[in-house]
Structure formats: C-alpha cells, structure tokens
C-alpha cells in the first residue's frame, strides 16, 4: 500500500435548499517523495480536495489513507496530531504569526509538532532550514516588515522544519511574481528531494509544471487527466 491514497472522495455543499456536489468521486494516489500538482479551472474543486486530503475538512463520502491509517474515520484529536507531526502546510498567503520573529515561527512549529530534538538541535535545524530558504539573515524580523516573497519563503520553511512526510500547498506562488515563483518552486523541489517529502500542491500556473513529477487535471469535480512525468 502506498503512503497516501484518496479513494472515491465526494463532497457536497448545501447552499440553503440547493445541494451542490463539488467533488464527484475522486481517486488519487500520491507518488511517494514526489510532487503531485492539481490543476484545473477555477471552481473545479482543487482547494476542496486538498483541504479534505489534509484533514482540514471532512469528505461527504469516500476514504483517505495515510500510512495504512484511515484519516476519514479518525477523531479530531488524532487528526490534529497527524497534522502537527506528519503534515506541513503552505497556504496561498503566508499566514505567519504577526507577533513572532522569523526564527520564532519555526520554533513554534517544532513545539507544536512535539519535536524530539533537544533545544540545541532545534536551534541548529532552524538555522539550517532558514539558510536553505535564504532567510537566516532576517531571522529576527517580524512578518509585517517582510516582502511577500520573503514571507512565503518563511512559510515554506515553517512547513518543512518538522520534517513532515506530506506537504500540502495551495497555490503557494500565487502572490509572487514570476521570478519569485520560480525560486519558491525550486525550493520546494529541492526540499522534497533532499528530505523525501511527498508533496500535493494546487497550481494554476503552467510555468510551475516543469518542477513537478505528476499532474492531475480537474474539471467540475472530477479528474479528467492524470499524467505521471
């Protein structure tokens, strides 16, 4: 069995009386240690699928398996622990904690993930990851003083500092210009390779596709194309 599998997932939202099926039976298997991209038109259900896979909202039907465990039948607290320890998240906007420095953002993530590293090792790890995203020189800065690209690089660092098994990213480059987007994408690719992180990311941007291993195209809640490079 593979690391991460999505089986027959459906999602229905109720708009008052009207029920609308946004995901109409989705099956996806993520390639371990590889980057899988979800593409498709706006409103096709990409973000919905990503957040369901990440355990941030429930599916109406179907199952999700991570390391032989069925996420779809777990209690909230179990899911939280998995999110904290095994998953990493990058959102469209960086969503950093405004009153913590760059370095503290990462320390907080390690604390949340109940890292087994000693304080000393944590400091070393934070430094390493910040150097990786080229933000070590800004370690004492607060988010409001960072540029959009810098914030997103910190968000990437926060998403991987605790060595998650799976990284979920919803349009991580949407708020960046083309040059910055390429940089962040290269960074994600590098991290995925170096740390054996399985990535599921939503992207609109065709320029990002050269960096990914597996492309899934969605339309109106179904998969219309599934290509492994």
């Amino acid at each position, binding site marked *: 069995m593979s690391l991460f599998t999505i089986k027959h997932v459906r999602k229905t939202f109720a708009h008052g009386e009207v029920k609308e099926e946004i995901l109409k039976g989705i099956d996806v298997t993520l390639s371990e240690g590889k980057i899988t991209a979800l593409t498709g038109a706006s409103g096709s259900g990409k973000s919905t699928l990503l957040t369901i896979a990440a355990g941030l909202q429930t599916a109406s039907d179907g199952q999700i398996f991570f390391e032989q465990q069925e996420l779809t039948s777990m209690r909230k607290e179990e899911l939280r622990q998995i999110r904290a320890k095994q998953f990493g998240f990058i959102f469209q906007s960086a969503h950093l904690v405004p*009153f913590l420095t760059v370095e503290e953002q990462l320390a907080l993530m390690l604390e949340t993930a109940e890292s087994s590293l000693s304080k000393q090792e944590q400091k070393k790890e934070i430094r390493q990851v910040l150097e990786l995203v080229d933000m070590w020189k800004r370690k004492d800065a607060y988010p409001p003083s960072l540029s959009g690209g810098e914030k997103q690089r910190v968000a990437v660092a926060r998403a991987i500092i605790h060595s998650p098994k799976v990284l979920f990213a919803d349009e991580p480059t949407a708020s960046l210009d083309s040059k910055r987007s390429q940089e962040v994408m290269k960074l994600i690719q590098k991290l995925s390779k170096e740390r054996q992180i399985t990535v599921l990311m939503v992207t609109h941007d065709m320029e990002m596709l050269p960096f990914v291993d597996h492309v899934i195209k969605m339309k109106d809640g179904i998969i219309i194309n599934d290509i492994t490079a």
Partner: protein
Amino acid sequence: MNMAWKEIKKNKLRYTILGSIVFLISLLTFIISGLANGLSQDNASLIKNLPNGIFYMEEEADETYSFSSLSKQQQQEITEEESEAAFFSIQMGNFIDTSDKQRSIAYVAADSAYFPEVNPGEVILDASLEDEGIAVGDEITNEQWNQSLTVAGFAEHEKYSHSPAAFINPDDFQTLFHTDSMQIAFIADSAIQNADDAPIFEGLQAFSNNEFLNTIPSYNAEQMSLNMIVIFLLVISGMLFAIFFYMINVQKLGIYGILKAIGMKTGALFQMMWAQMFLISAFSLILSILISQVFQSLAPSGMPFHLTWQATGLLSLVFIIIGFIGATLSGIQIKRVEPMQAIQQGEM
C-alpha cells in the same frame, strides 16, 4: 514558547489600555472597600474590637438593645452557665465639655475585661475626643445630671453608632440613667460561627458578632450600599475582561485558525489567553494595591478609611477569578473557529 508575553510585547498599546482600565477599576474598588471598612470601624469599633462570640439580648426587645434589660436573676443564670460572661449597657447621649460645647456620645457601662475599667465619678473617652481638645482631668456634665464626671483617660478606637464611646462605672450608669439592669450579655467563644450553635437561655435571643452589628440601624444600610458598589465594580471588571478579550480575540481569529490548521492544540491557545489575562491583572492589581496603601497612609486622619492587606489580597483574588471567567467566556470563539475559515479568509 512564551507566546503570551511575546504578543503583549508586540502590542504594548492594546494591553496597556486593558491594564490601565483594570488598574483604575481595582483601585476604585479598593478605595470603596477601604471606606466601607473604615465606616464600619467608625460606626462600631466598640463591638468590632470584641473577640468572636455570642451576644444575648432580651427576646422582647426585638433586636433593639436599648429595649433589652437583663435582670439580676437572668445575669446570674448566664454566669452560672458561663463564668466568663460579660455584661454591658449602651446609652446614646451627649455631654457638655469645659468649653460648653455639646457633643454626642455613647455611654458604655460594663463589668468586663473587654472594656476599660472605670472608677466611680470618672470617665474614659474614645481617643478621637482627645484630638478635639479634651484632656485628662476635664470635667464633663450633662443638663439632666446634677453631678459631673472627670476624664481619667482615653481608649483607642472605641466608637458606637458613629459616636465616641464614654466608659463609665456601672454604678454611675445606674444612677444617671435610672436603671438597675444590664442590656447585653457577651460570651467569648472562638469556636462559634453561628448564633444557632450558642447555648440557649430562656427569654433571650442570641446573636453572632455580625448579626449583632447588623442590629445597629445605620450599620446595615451603610455597609450594604458600599458592598453593593464593590460587587458591581467586580462584575463590571469581569465584563470588561470578557469584552476586551473578545475584541482582541476577534482580531486574532485568523491566526488561531491557522495555528489550529498546523496542528496546535486549542488548549494551548486558551493557555496563551489565560497567561495574558493573568499577567495584565497581576501587574495592574499590584500597582493598585500599592497605591491604595499609599492613599491610606496619606488620607486625613478624620477620614474613615481602613484597608488591610488581607482585604486587598482577597479582593485581588476575586478580580483574578472574575477576569479568568470573563476571558474564558470570550474564549469560546477560539474553540469554535475552524481552520478552514481562516484559510479561506486569507484568500479574500
């Protein structure tokens, strides 16, 4: 990681405002409570100075000491039961001092170690009268009397019904006020909390110290209104905490949602809020405790103000408990916020 403190440091203005309001309300509460206590001393220190115990009055007196009269026989019955029993009488009245000035006073006659012992023809006055110019050796009298009393000394803090007490010899009391009985019996007993536990005597009604204080007509009214103000201030401070943390939390719901998404425990978020509430209140309360004590030492001596460290400590504890409840109530939003909300809000 100490997120609570880090956030306070980054948002000094916001938390300084909360702290100052808590400081002002708690200072006001301490001062009113000091006044309540001061007035209670000023009203009834004569009774408050007595140890814990039981007071007896005649049942027919209907809780009015001046109507009570314990006959010699009743006094004997009580003494047989409790050899340490004390008897005393109080008579509100006035006297004319050496400068022909009339002053109201509470005459007290007692045969008991709890009150100063006075020789016939002499009087011991509350020390407040010494400040007003009366001296040992002065003669005081009253229009209705054909004798005068010599001031033999002063006693600290002995007031009844806002009047200074004047201790006189029981024999003088009997001649001056035409009575041969005592009004009130008192038995000291540190164990008794409730008048119902007291020994029963036929025809007598028992009162605990507090119940007896409340038979003083002005005492109850004064204390009740001041204590109501104190309670209102405590409730307001609780609401203040709730409203303030509500506003702060609303602004932070996005952050809370994201922190929940990345796997932080809801409990950790609550702990952060509690720590902030505790830091702010501890700081503000210590400041207002100090300032209220400074106020106490600077207040004019005639001002009935009396604030003990215990009273401020107890009120502070109540403040912290109420602040905790207020903050927790407003923290229900933290529990409710879904990570999805925050993520989607970020896309708007």
